[in-house]
């Protein structure tokens, strides 16, 4: 008898447990399948990844759209970029496109490879009525494949040098000493700051060549040449950037860490005195409220010898894409058209909270861009970003960007371990050509 009661209790417990699982998973994943049902045709599901940045931006867009369309809801599902890519690949190759949401945020560097590999997966927005001429031209160029517009450009990845004014002040410098300088000057200043304050200037993820690619881009150079071939060996710009990078590592001006969390840690814990990255890093820096007033923003250093060297570059940035098979495709396009592609009000609202610097040109004319930011000592940082953005050299992105990036990261590590620069770069060339020969 006792056993029977026990069994009954256990069964009940398990059933409740299962119901519990069912309800949680339906709130997580159910929205994917929900997009197929009649009842939810007014709900748009969106995948994007940054809780301090593009997620709040999308939520603001929802509020703005709801003013005219009160019955439409946006369901934002936080999904890391790697997961979005994996899920896209899986859904596209298996033909299970109903597992995808209505709108995704796509990294600029991955757009070409996804559109080329899955031509029918994304909605062609060319005839949607969206005015693409209102976006920064380099951003629309990224979203245009074979003459068709595939994305609504979102944020800029224009790079800047973020620097701890209190630390360099201790070493006797001001932000002007770091403005519009070359890398050799930056290294010289870095040595002095390190000697006087014990703080290295920069940090980077070991084997992650983001900074190196930003250095290349600042001189109008890319990992691919105009014909789309890998562009490492025999390229003086690459060699110079690698040498500068290695010098900084050797002198202790640049500390390498093993993953992204540690990288963020070096910034927020005050391990390093400066950051060079896309302007989307602003929200991460601002998250450390006790450092308010200690940071300044200026241009990144330029290469000394490269012919087209500038102090401006770009790292990252993304755009919104609509899935072609989405049952709410028209609603999704209309939503983007009335928010990210036309509402300056939206960009004004999200700028102070998220620091999302738009590539929608009319937004840059608004007053929000000239506001002073207390965290950065009252500086008008958004105006600066908008000005820097206008100077970024346009470069060729390639379909094999990810492969090239990982090959360059490998080469960088090999060079640090003592391999000859040209030999390692040749090997990187070979690796990319091999991947392209599939």
């Amino acid at each position: 008898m006792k056993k029977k009661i026990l069994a009954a209790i256990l069964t009940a417990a398990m059933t409740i447990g299962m119901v519990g699982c069912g309800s949680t998973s339906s709130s997580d994943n159910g929205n994917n399948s929900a997009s197929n049902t009649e009842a939810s045709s007014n709900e748009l599901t969106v995948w994007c990844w940054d809780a301090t940045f593009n997620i709040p931006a999308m939520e603001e867009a929802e509020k703005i759209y709801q003013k005219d369309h009160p019955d439409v809801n946006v369901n934002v599902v936080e999904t890391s970029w790697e997961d979005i890519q994996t899920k896209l690949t899986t859904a596209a190759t298996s033909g299970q496109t109903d597992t995808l949401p209505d709108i995704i945020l796509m990294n600029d560097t991955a757009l070409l490879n996804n559109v080329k590999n899955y031509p029918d997966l994304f909605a062609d927005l060319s005839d949607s009525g969206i005015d693409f001429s209102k976006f920064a031209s380099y951003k629309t160029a990224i979203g245009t494949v074979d003459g068709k517009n595939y994305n609504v450009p979102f944020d800029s990845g224009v790079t800047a040098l973020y620097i701890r004014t209190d630390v360099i002040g201790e070493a006797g410098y001001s932000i002007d000493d770091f403005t519009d300088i070359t890398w050799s000057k930056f290294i010289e200043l870095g040595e002095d700051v390190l000697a006087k304050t014990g703080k290295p200037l920069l940090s980077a993820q070991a084997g992650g060549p983001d900074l190196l690619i930003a250095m290349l881009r600042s001189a109008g150079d890319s990992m691919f040449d105009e014909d789309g071939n890998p562009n490492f060996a025999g390229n003086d710009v690459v060699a110079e950037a690698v040498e500068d990078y290695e010098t900084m590592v050797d002198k202790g001006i640049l500390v390498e860490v093993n993953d992204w969390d540690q990288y963020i840690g070096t910034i927020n814990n005050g391990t390093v005195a400066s950051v060079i990255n896309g302007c989307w890093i602003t929200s991460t820096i601002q998250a450390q409220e006790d450092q308010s007033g200690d940071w300044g923003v200026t241009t990144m250093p330029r290469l000394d010898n490269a012919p087209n060297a500038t102090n401006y570059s770009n790292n990252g940035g993304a755009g919104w894409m609509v899935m072609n098979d989405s049952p709410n495709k028209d609603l999704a396009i209309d939503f983007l058209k009335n928010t990210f592609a036309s509402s300056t009000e939206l960009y004004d609202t999200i700028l102070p909270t998220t620091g999302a610097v738009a590539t929608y040109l009319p937004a840059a004319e608004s007053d929000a861009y000239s506001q002073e930011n207390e965290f950065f000592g009252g500086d008008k940082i958004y105006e600066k970003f908008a000005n820097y953005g206008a100077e970024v050299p346009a470069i060729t992105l390639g379909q094999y960007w990810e492969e090239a990036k990982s090959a360059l990261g490998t080469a960088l590590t090999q060079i640090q371990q003592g391999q000859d620069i040209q030999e390692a770069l040749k090997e990187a060339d070979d690796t990319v050509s091999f991947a392209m020969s599939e």
Partner: protein
Amino acid sequence: MKTKKRKIMGWTFVIPASIMIVIFNFVPMIQSFILSLKRGSGTNMIFTGFSNYKRMFQDKIFKMTLSNTFIYLILEVAIMLVMAMFLASLLNDKRLKGKWFFRLAIFLPCTTSLVSYSIIFRSLFSVDGFINTILTNLHLIASPINWLGNTWTARIVIVLALLWRWTGYNMIFFLAALQNIDSSIYEAAVVDGANAFQKFTKITIPMLRPTILLTAIMSTNGTLQLFDESMNITNGGPANTSMTISHYIYNLSFAGNPNFGYASAISYVVFILVAILAFIQMKVGDEK
């Protein structure tokens, strides 16, 4: 009549499971073999025969990941099985007190999730991590070691993680097998004047042979398909020198331009390797 009825009964019990195995195991295996004969990326695939298999011979990263995987295999399986056997015979001692506690403590790691323990190992061995703090405070090293940034230390961290995770699991098999060895054999050996070492090498190991074979095949299979540790502890770095084959297969499929045909071809190579190694082990282990 009765036997026929019984036969039908038996088949009805077996058939549902068999159909499931065919649908969820064998069909995908055949499909992936067909896929491995195709070329192209994404959804644009064309049939090209064995070109993917030829491609492997020119692929430096594949060769690197293959040798990495064999380094893990040789180091890890050998050390782990010896340790598991040693721990099992210690814990099988009748005079030992608090046996349940030690067994539990050694077995517990293998109930943890692969991803979460990998992340913990990564943070333990980071430059400003726990291990470096301990070693510097004990004055064993002057400055922190970048464990995950150097080829061999990164590989050693992965082997250590594997040992921590799997030794207890294998120990349980040895414990079970040890308890089946009749204690009278040991008593007879003692009467004959055997010491503890001789008892271990002359009685325990031969009696454990089937279990050694089982655990060796299981660990070989597991190590050749190693993925989580490579992905989460080192992310394959530095310069791909700690990346496993499975991790490379994942990268080919999901990072950058998907090349499923080539990825399937490599997974077939892993399949063949497991089969060959298991065959050799069975030949060596089964002397009869």
